[in-house]
């Protein structure tokens, strides 16, 4: 995997190579070169299988991190390509021409994160949520609890306990002090 990264380095602006374990590694590439790199990996490096394609919301950094997970059946290596895109007006090049099934992932990302993939088939259609009119629910600024309490009808009487203090009260009722026990 390290050799692969060294081969890619003169060709693409790849960085942050991280070997997770034997046959799994990650690398990072800027948004504008990502599609070219993935095409190269598929056509010339044997990564013929798109395992999954998802996004993580790093709201503190103001980015969505797209993760393209590629697999090579020949060497049994798996390579994750990280691409950071800005959260505002998030747009990314579609890869449905490389793998047709990517269109479905892109449709899901459009609905759940609001990341647009212009040209991807059916990207504007409803995927799982029918008639959703709020901000996309997997964005971290979306308050799912407040939405559920506002929209659905919570049954009164539900109470929840903090597991640590609750179990301490159950198991050691006589112990004084905080959750860690402390002095008796």
């Amino acid at each position: 995997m390290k050799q692969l990264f060294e081969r890619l380095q003169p060709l693409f602006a790849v960085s942050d190579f991280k070997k997770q374990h034997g046959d799994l590694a990650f690398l990072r590439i800027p948004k504008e070169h990502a599609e070219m790199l993935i095409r190269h990996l598929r056509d010339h490096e044997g990564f013929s299988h798109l395992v999954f394609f998802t996004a993580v919301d790093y709201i503190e950094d103001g980015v969505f991190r797209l993760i393209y997970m590629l697999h090579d059946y020949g060497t049994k290596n798996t390579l994750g390509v990280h691409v950071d895109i800005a959260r505002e007006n998030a747009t990314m090049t579609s890869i449905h021409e490389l793998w047709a099934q990517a269109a479905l992932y892109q449709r899901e990302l459009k609905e759940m994160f609001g990341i647009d993939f212009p040209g991807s088939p059916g990207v504007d259609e409803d995927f799982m949520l029918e008639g959703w009119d709020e901000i996309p629910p997997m964005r971290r600024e979306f308050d799912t609890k407040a939405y559920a309490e506002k929209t659905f009808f919570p049954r009164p009487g539900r109470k929840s306990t903090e597991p640590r203090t609750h179990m301490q009260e159950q198991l050691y009722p006589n112990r004084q002090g905080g959750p860690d026990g402390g002095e008796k």
Partner: protein
Amino acid sequence: MRSANRKDLPELPNEGLTYPDTEYFCKTRPVPVEPHFKAMEQVRNWARANSLSIQAFGTGCGAVELRPLMTARYDAYRYSVTGSATPRQSCVFVIGGYASVKTLKRIIVSYEQMQNPKFVVGLGSCTVNGGMYWDSYNTINRIDHYIPVDLYISGCMPRPEALLAGFIKLKELIKAGKCEGANKYAENFDWYKANQKKVIKNWNMPDYNW
């Protein structure tokens, strides 16, 4: 309110439909059915209680408990509980666990297509108060705000034994004449419909499916 008064009620708007679907669906509301005299009603309830057919619609993860229930080990046929193929042939609707908004839409269509008398069993904690998905963005909390529920079986998941106990309890309730869910739905139709439309944003089906 008798069935003859059906025409006096205001028509359903069916605003979610577009042409030509507007021509295919009826605009009349459901009406409550008046009971017969008491002895006849008792005989009918006895017969209803002893021929329960479950609708084959697994709405959530709890539906997995219905398979062992029907097969040889737990064998619900002993208690005259059987399965049926379509909503129109069934009388028991088992809501199998959590119901997302998307599923709720299908639940309402199926429930309204079932013929009177019909009974609803809420299976699992999720139907009672949302269970572990109580703060989810797309899982409803209380199924009894959308369709009337006759009986809840709590647990996550309840075992097939609990389901059998639930069906025996349901039979007792039917024999006692306490399962009037279909009439309750017809009497409070506007309230149920308002709750349903509150969560189902793209309402593109008739207001009453039958």
